[in-house]
């Protein structure tokens, strides 16, 4: 056991990293060289990508990655002899638009048009190992390294051009994707320079990249690079992939979570033409030449399942506390002294429900076995993790598995695992043909995983002047992300305890940062009320961090905080920090008198994540996070009992729709002097507490559970 901090921090990311890579990466430098045919390749060593993580981690959370620094290829840029620029990365595109933003970064440094850069993403036979696309890490880690690699490739190309002309490298420039000499009397295309070369290089340590202020391609708002394929329906998601002779699969689902298969009668299904029934332990599935037959076969199978009794919603929060694995924290100062110094004290408990990711594209996989090698197309945020899962499930070496991730119908942290890939591969192995398996929406709701539910207890002390003197914060089960405060509290005891979760739980956009911000920011509002202070003034009294102060003031000013109040409207605000970026959210709400339905009418989100890479896509990510947050804040909640999900359909599980949209104003603070942090997650955390505080402002009713109207 370490000093407790490591323990806490490990807990933070337990869901993101639950399946450790096995380090059988299958794409090392030697293999890379074997695959490389010609042109110029600029390698980003894995250690560069890891080093950033390590650095960031030591700053923020204790250095988890120091055990895993392989000397491997992390990504590379290939300038083909034809002049085509290809970027190879294990990152996946799930709607966050990194296919565009990474291409922009490379085009910027190479001084070539965006359209000449092609990204090869997330095909485990073609790209180097990557831990996965999560944690808002692509922009802070992958993008700067690709930019450095592109800058190094540019310098290499320049020196090759100079060599051809027998001139000094300083006299060669790139203008409109052409190399020109000092008086522009001679010019060469990239293809002319790259032709006949067979050069593999690693980024030199001293390579300089273009300062943000001089960017002309990166950081600009450009349309999605392959947008046309999406608006014409041509883009092939996993569920659109078709292989010769492909069959359609269905899985016979258990009666409840944790059920085991007692007995089954498969005769009727097996009698159907072309149907193969597969049973392996508790797994039962069918394949058929078409989906309708597969569905009929699945329904024709009679199975007796045995399921244990399991807790449901009603006893959930007691259950989580009773089954807690208590973890030590690393207290700052003394809670006893802080409480003694307080004029007023407050103890409150907050709860957060399980919610589903409900990605637009349910889990899907197409699996094909050829000569003992397994190829699976599937939508996942961890292609190499799924590759390991498959190798393990079928007891085959990792090099016998290829995972290809087509640009996917989103994930929000919900697609870190490979259940569907494993199932499709099992069915394909039994039937001897490629098999497509697309989960139904009900399966996605029942058999994927959820954002963890949690109980959070807060004890605090405050002086009459608004200074918080003691802050004791204990989270049961939902996790440690965003649990640390950026407020200037002198005495803190903050802990994230594990528990036994009745439902399968995992990552979700923002992880526990949403729950922890909800509890913290609602509690801050309660403290402000306790000492009779304005919620913004109260927060500012406790803030020294200039970046937190900046977003809070920005949101308050843009919102017009404390100015005019409209009858029938409530106003609330919240702020926070997570994964290197800062958010403040202000909300104006109304309540429908008859139904009690809460409607966010206007939301201002001020966000700062260092230097802005692509303003439009950043705006979209922030806006998307605010919209998605409305669901968890107001109505999303998984209802369950005895291992069954009771509301696992869109007809019963309400997600945000067009009519739920408030007027959203987004303020993006651009800190060109700071490195860019990821932005996919943090903007989600401010909405629920801001809306909760606004409900209190309007109705005087303090709601301490998410969803607020559940």
């Amino acid at each position, binding site marked *: 056991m370490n000093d407790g901090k490591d323990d806490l921090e490990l807990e933070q990311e337990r869901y993101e990293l639950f399946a450790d890579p096995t380090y059988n990466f299958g794409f090392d430098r030697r293999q890379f060289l074997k695959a490389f045919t010609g042109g110029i390749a600029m390698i980003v060593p894995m250690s560069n990508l890891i080093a950033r993580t390590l650095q960031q981690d030591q700053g923020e959370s204790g250095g988890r990655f120091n055990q895993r620094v392989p000397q491997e290829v992390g990504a590379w840029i290939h300038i083909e002899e034809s002049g085509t620029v290809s970027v190879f990365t294990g990152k996946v595109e*799930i*709607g*966050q*638009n990194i296919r565009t933003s990474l291409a922009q970064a490379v085009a910027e440094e190479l001084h070539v048009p965006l359209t000449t850069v092609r990204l090869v993403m997330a095909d485990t036979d073609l790209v180097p190992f990557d831990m996965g696309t999560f944690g808002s890490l692509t922009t802070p880690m992958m993008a700067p390294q690709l930019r450095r690699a592109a800058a190094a490739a540019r310098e290499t190309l320049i020196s090759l051009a100079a060599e051809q002309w027998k001139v000094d490298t300083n006299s060669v420039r790139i203008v409109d994707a052409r190399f020109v000499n000092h008086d522009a009397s001679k010019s060469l295309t990239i293809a002319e320079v790259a032709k006949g070369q067979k050069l593999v290089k690693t980024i030199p340590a001293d390579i300089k990249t273009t300062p943000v202020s001089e960017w002309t391609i990166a950081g600009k*708002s*450009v*349309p*999605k690079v392959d*947008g*046309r394929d*999406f*608006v*014409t*329906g*041509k*883009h*092939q*998601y996993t*569920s*659109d992939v*078709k292989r010769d002779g492909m069959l*359609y699969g269905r899985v016979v689902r258990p009666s409840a979570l944790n059920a085991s298969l007692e007995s089954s009668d498969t005769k009727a299904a097996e009698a159907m033409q072309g149907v193969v029934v597969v049973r392996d332990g508790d797994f039962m599935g069918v394949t058929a030449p*078409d*989906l*309708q037959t597969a569905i009929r076969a699945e329904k024709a199978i009679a199975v007796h399942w045995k399921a244990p009794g399991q807790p449901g919603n009603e006893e959930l929060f007691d259950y989580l506390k009773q089954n807690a694995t208590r973890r030590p924290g690393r207290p700052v100062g003394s809670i006893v002294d802080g409480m003694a110094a307080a004029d007023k004290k407050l103890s409150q408990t907050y709860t957060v429900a399980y919610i589903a990711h*409900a*990605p*637009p*594209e*349910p889990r899907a996989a197409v699996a094909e076995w050829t000569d003992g090698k397994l190829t699976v197309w599937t939508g996942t945020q961890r292609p190499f993790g799924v590759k390991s899962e498959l190798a393990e499930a079928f007891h085959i070496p990792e090099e016998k598995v290829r995972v290809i991730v087509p*640009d*996917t*119908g*989103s994930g*929000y942290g919900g697609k870190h695992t490979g259940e569907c890939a494993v199932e499709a591969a099992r069915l394909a192995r039994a039937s001897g043909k490629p098999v497509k398996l*697309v989960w*139904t*929406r009900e399966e996605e709701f029942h058999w994927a995983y959820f954002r963890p539910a949690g109980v959070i207890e807060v004890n605090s002390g405050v002086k009459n002047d608004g200074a918080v003197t003691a802050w004791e914060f204990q989270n049961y089960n939902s996790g440690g992300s965003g649990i640390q405060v950026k407020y200037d509290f002198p005495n803190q005891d903050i802990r994230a305890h594990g528990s036994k979760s009745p439902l399968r739980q995992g990552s979700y956009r923002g992880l526990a940062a949403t729950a922890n911000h909800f509890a913290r920011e609602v509690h801050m509002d309660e403290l402000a009320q306790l000492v009779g202070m304005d919620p913004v003034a109260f927060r500012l009294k406790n803030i020294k961090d200039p970046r937190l102060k900046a977003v809070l003031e920005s949101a308050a000013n843009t919102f017009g905080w404390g100015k005019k109040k409209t009858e029938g409207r409530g106003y609330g605000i919240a702020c926070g920090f997570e994964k290197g970026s800062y958010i403040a959210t202000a909300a104006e709400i109304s309540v429908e008198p008859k139904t009690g339905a809460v409607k966010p009418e206007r939301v201002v989100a001020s966000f700062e994540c260092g230097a802005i890479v692509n303003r*439009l896509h950043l705006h*979209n990510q922030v*806006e*998307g*996070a*605010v*919209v*998605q947050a409305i669901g968890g804040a107001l109505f999303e909640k998984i209802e369950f009992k005895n291992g069954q999900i009771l509301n696992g*359909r*869109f*007809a019963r599980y309400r*997600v*945000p*729709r*067009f*009519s739920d*949209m408030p007027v*959203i104003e987004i303020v993006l603070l651009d800190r060109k002097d700071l490195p860019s942090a990821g932005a996919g997650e943090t903007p989600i955390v401010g909405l629920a507490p801001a809306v909760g505080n606004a409900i209190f402002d309007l109705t005087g009713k303090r709601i301490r559970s998410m969803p607020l109207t559940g």
Partner: protein
Amino acid sequence: MANVTNLNVNGKKLRVNVDSQTPLLYVLRDHLNMTGTKYGCGESKCGACTVLVDGQVMRSCVTPVSRVGGKQVTTIEGLEKDGKLHPLQEAFLKADALQCGFCTSGMIMAAAGLMNKNPKPSRDEIVKHMDANVCRCGAYARIVNAIEIAAGTAKEVAAHE
């Protein structure tokens, strides 16, 4: 159980030999290889499977193929004419009205159905009509903007001019 149904999809006459109860969605996707129309929920609650039948919005996941025999079915693949995008497709790109893009086909078809009966819908009419379509990435505001651009009623400047 098999039945032959005569279909007219995107102006093309086609015959399919499937159970007449098969939802149109799977006939399009699995039998006709038109995969632009998506499965999202199978109970007409998300709109990913939206197509037009005789110009009207229809959820293909709950529509038996036999019900559209002899009618004009339009899918996302049928909007582009001679390599030229439909104004809604142009507008969705212009307004950046998509992130992961999985709901996009359904959104565009639902909007096309709206504009068939109401070429210049108000913002409220757009929201009301589109409320049956779900986008999980949160692009709603940009989708409304895109429809307004296509309808020529947009007040806001589009993302990419």
